[in-house]
């Protein structure tokens, strides 16, 4: 009975364990040769989509990533985890630097309409820019309901119940499909992309939808002026006294 289709957006970011180094000219961070991997929250989103497919509530999962050629590896990982198709929106490396949530949200909105999906899943934020905006903006462009910071997602017919982690505790929403959901940490524990799946994903990745979607051009609304380490404010930490109460 599952006719639902899901679009999962994944981002290729610098691996969380790597020590970040700022470029000497302070225009950004060193990314050349540095280990990259899928954004951890995006992994959680992919895992949720795959679980829904295993429960036979979702029929097809499309993984999409915007960025330079190396994003193909990220899409391949998503395919190995269980996505059916991958779409790579190719952005030349020079322009990729100016790619921000607004541009990506536009792309995702266009793709969601083009592919006629019912559910758009994303990670709540990327660990490199910490913007936490793409999911929300995508919902805005599509004029769809959104359930962000999801710690539980339950599909109920033509609606989706989303339990959200908010500052005051937990909030439960019921959204009419189609909807946008962003994944928070406790939604699930992502599976490993095992070698047999990666081997199988190879042919899948090249066979299908890896054409760059012809979507709106990237006009950069904002430009990064500089990037550097936080300034040492020179304030000493208060000595912690060992006080036994």
């Amino acid at each position, binding site marked *: 009975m599952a006719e639902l289709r899901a679009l999962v957006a994944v981002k290729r970011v610098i691996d969380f364990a790597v*020590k970040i180094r700022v470029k000497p000219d302070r225009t950004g961070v060193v990314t050349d040769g540095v280990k990259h991997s899928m954004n951890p929250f995006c992994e959680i989103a992919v895992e949720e989509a795959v679980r829904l497919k295993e429960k036979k509530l979702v029929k097809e999962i499309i993984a999409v990533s915007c960025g330079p050629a190396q994003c193909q590896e990220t899409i391949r990982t998503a395919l190995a985890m269980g996505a059916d198709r991958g779409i790579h929106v190719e952005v030349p490396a020079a322009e990729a630097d100016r790619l921000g949530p607004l541009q990506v949200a536009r792309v995702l909105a266009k793709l969601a309409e083009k592919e006629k999906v019912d559910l758009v899943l994303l990670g709540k934020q990327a660990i490199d820019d910490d913007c936490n905006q793409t999911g929300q903006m995508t919902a805005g462009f599509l004029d769809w309901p959104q359930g962000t910071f999801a710690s539980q997602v339950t599909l109920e017919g033509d609606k989706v119940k989303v339990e959200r982690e908010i500052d005051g505790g937990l909030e439960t929403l019921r959204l009419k499909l189609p909807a946008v959901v962003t994944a928070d940490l406790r939604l699930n524990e992502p599976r490993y992309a095992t070698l047999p799946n990666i*081997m199988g994903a190879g042919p899948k990745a090249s066979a299908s939808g890896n054409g760059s979607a012809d979507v709106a051009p990237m006009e950069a609304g904002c430009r990064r002026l500089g990037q550097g380490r936080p300034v040492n404010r020179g304030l000493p930490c208060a000595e912690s006294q060992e006080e036994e109460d």
Partner: protein
Amino acid sequence: MLLPLAKLSCPAYQCFHALKIKKDYLPLCATRWSSTSVVPRITTHYTVCPRDKDKRWEGVNMERFAEEADVVIVGAGPAGLSAAIRLKQLATKQEKDIRVCLVEKAAQIGAHTLSGACLDPRGFEELFPDWKEKGAPLNTPVTEDRFGILTEKYRIPVPILPGLPMNNHGNYIVRLGHLVSWMGEQAESLGVEVYPGYAAAEVLFHEDGSVKGVATNDVGIQKDGAPKTTFERGLELHAKVTIFAEGCHGHLAKQLYKKFDLRANCEPQTYGIGLKESIPKLTFPGGLLIGCSPGFMNVPKIKGTHTAMKSGILAAESIFNQLTSENLQSKTTGLHVTEYEDNLKKSWVWKELYTVRNIRPSCHGILGVYGGMIYTGIFYWIFRGMEPWTLKHKGSDSDQLKPAKDCTPIEYPKPDGQISFDLLSSVALSGTNHEHDQPAHLTLKDDSIPVNRNLSIYDGPEQRFCPAGVYEFVPLEQGDGFRLQINAQNCVHCKTCDIKDPSQNINWVVPEGGGGPAYNGM
């Protein structure tokens, strides 16, 4: 559970009776406690604590998928990649189709490569005669060499004469990690299936004892050894020939040395700090060893990359001949490519290593390094290593430690943040990380030895020789004494502990693939 109990001494047996309720939940390895003092369980890895008798693993599907290839290569360093590339080059030239699979424990090719490096392009040029056009990152030719003995404040210059191994004319300074990444790209474009992030954890054997292939590591095991919901078995990669190019002190190679007795006629291997550096038998049914794993490093020249590459190339050529020969008759299901060792002995690698074979052992004499230098000057430079004798090493590295009571502790000055740095911030620079919820991959055959032997006799050398601060002796929460704490996440995969442990109790096995250092272009 009952069988090992019979071997225990009475008080321990009574302990077990008292712990009757917990008995069923204690995996087999806990029964190795041989004294009444409680030894905290450290090792939970399944290579030490078997899973087939562990109650937590009941009902877990342990089936593995298998893939068939012609050649499987373990390790994507200079040697492994050279072999892979050469195999595909030969296949293309002779229009044959062979499937070559390459597994590498690092998350990306080059992330675990650590070397100077000053590359002698000899091996590389045989692989890529047109490397300049292809854009290989050999950008810095050596222009000048200076050799000196450093004293506390001065430098005594030592002349480098042409013909001495330290002479670097014609060599290139490279970032070996970048070179290895570049080779990885070339390999992929030639059609090699490269799989970074997957560690080969187990050697597989045919019934006749020849090597069948390798299996990648299982994933999804908790720190205490129990399965997680995401548990999945590794993949078996079967091949006609398996090439082991694991690098210095590879853990699978260690198993193979024992199984096939490959080190029967050679000296124990000596190391710097377990990263680089007496050549064993190199082939066995179903596989062979290349690169720094058996060790082709030219010590006085301080270069091993070129010989590693050449060993990879020769291995590929020998294997290719066997794979494509029409009337192949093999006694074993896994092919035994003895031609590789013969070809290596006829090549420039052997000649080069033969001429310098005595230089490292000559440093063991009374005059130490100076004796070594004098020896080099006379016997290498003048006589070109033709002397009829071969000096021996002093024995394996792990036997060299003296008991702590015979030594005075060295007072090291505190790191000053300018030319010396503290250990943990240096480890952080390597970017090393492992999934924290997995069994520690630094396994102990006997959990009681670190405190009972290493600490009591040698004052716990593992807390000093590990460059990443993995081993710590922390005071027990109750009472006197210490226990060993293994911070497996810090491990930089150097294998020093496996090499240097005086009790040879530590067995380094591979962690979940993708973990480990993330060197960039080292």
